[in-house]
């Protein structure tokens, strides 16, 4: 089994993702420079956080139009897993891997803090090791993370159970106060139409070791590995 972490100019969570996959979870992982393309099959690809192309135009917009995205779409069509984290989620949404967009926070400043998420779906390859309704602590760090989609698209995502995570309070209540960026329906983790894509604004790689204050995010990587092992 082998995973890849894509690296764009401006990615800055790429090595953290490699560290967690390789050193913490024990999976062979390639750090792939976007210009080199995906030259072999991978079980999972992570699009890491950062500020690709300086967030010019819109966060993720320019990276989403680079040729490596064609490789990524092919990977996805073959059933390979894709996890987009923060800027990676913005890139994935701009590339159409999920409907909707992650745009400027309701209060337009950078927020960087630990938040609570409620696991809404534990039947996906990314969340199978969580309990449904489990409350986990994973930090966010973004200025453009407010999930927006038209009402009919939101309903479609809910109906198809493609919401993976919502911002909530410590008791698991989904409230306006627990929504740090104004995301529609407090949604901050969305699954692709075949459940093999997860795009999320919080950073699970920053919550994968106890020394960092939380290892709640590690289950996402472990779930992916477990899924890949079963294939």
């Amino acid at each position, binding site marked *: 089994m082998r995973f890849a972490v894509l690296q764009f100019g401006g990615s800055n969570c790429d090595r953290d993702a490699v560290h967690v996959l390789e050193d913490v979870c024990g999976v062979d992982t390639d750090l792939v420079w976007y210009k080199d393309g995906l030259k072999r099959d991978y079980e999972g690809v992570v699009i890491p956080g950062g500020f690709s192309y300086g967030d010019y*135009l*819109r966060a993720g*917009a*320019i990276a989403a*139009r680079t040729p490596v995205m064609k490789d990524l779409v092919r990977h996805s069509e073959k059933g390979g897993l894709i996890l987009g984290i923060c800027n990676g989620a913005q890139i994935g949404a*701009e590339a159409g891997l999920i*409907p*909707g*967009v992650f*745009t*400027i*926070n*309701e*209060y*337009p400043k950078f927020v960087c803090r630990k938040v609570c998420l409620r696991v809404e779906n534990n039947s996906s390859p990314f969340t199978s090791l969580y309990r449904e309704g489990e409350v986990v602590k994973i930090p966010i760090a973004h200025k453009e993370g407010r999930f*927006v*989609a*038209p009402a009919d698209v939101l309903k479609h995502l809910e109906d198809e159970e493609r919401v993976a995570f919502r911002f909530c309070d410590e008791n698991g209540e989904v409230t306006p106060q627990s929504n740090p960026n*104004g995301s529609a329906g407090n949604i901050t983790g969305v699954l692709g139409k075949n459940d093999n894509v997860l795009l999320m604004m919080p950073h699970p790689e920053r919550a994968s070791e106890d020394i960092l204050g939380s290892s709640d995010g590690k289950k996402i990587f472990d779930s992916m590995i477990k899924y890949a092992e079963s294939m």
Partner: protein
Amino acid sequence: MNFEVRIMISLKSGMLNPEARAIQHALSDLGFETESLRTSRVFDIGIEAENEQEAKKQAEEMCVRLLANPVIHSYSVEVKQL
């Protein structure tokens, strides 16, 4: 022929625009009461095309493929022959 296309990208009406809201508040602090305020982004792009229609078509394709995100943006295109 050479053309300059002016592309204006705006948030669709009804879309929350935190930037505009902050500016409106700042204007209010200076004593300017405004009924509404919207921000747009303008791109002036020089291109070569066979005619005005072709130049407009190219500009619209730029909007669809990169400059606008159809989930939140609308756009307009003006073409000027140089």
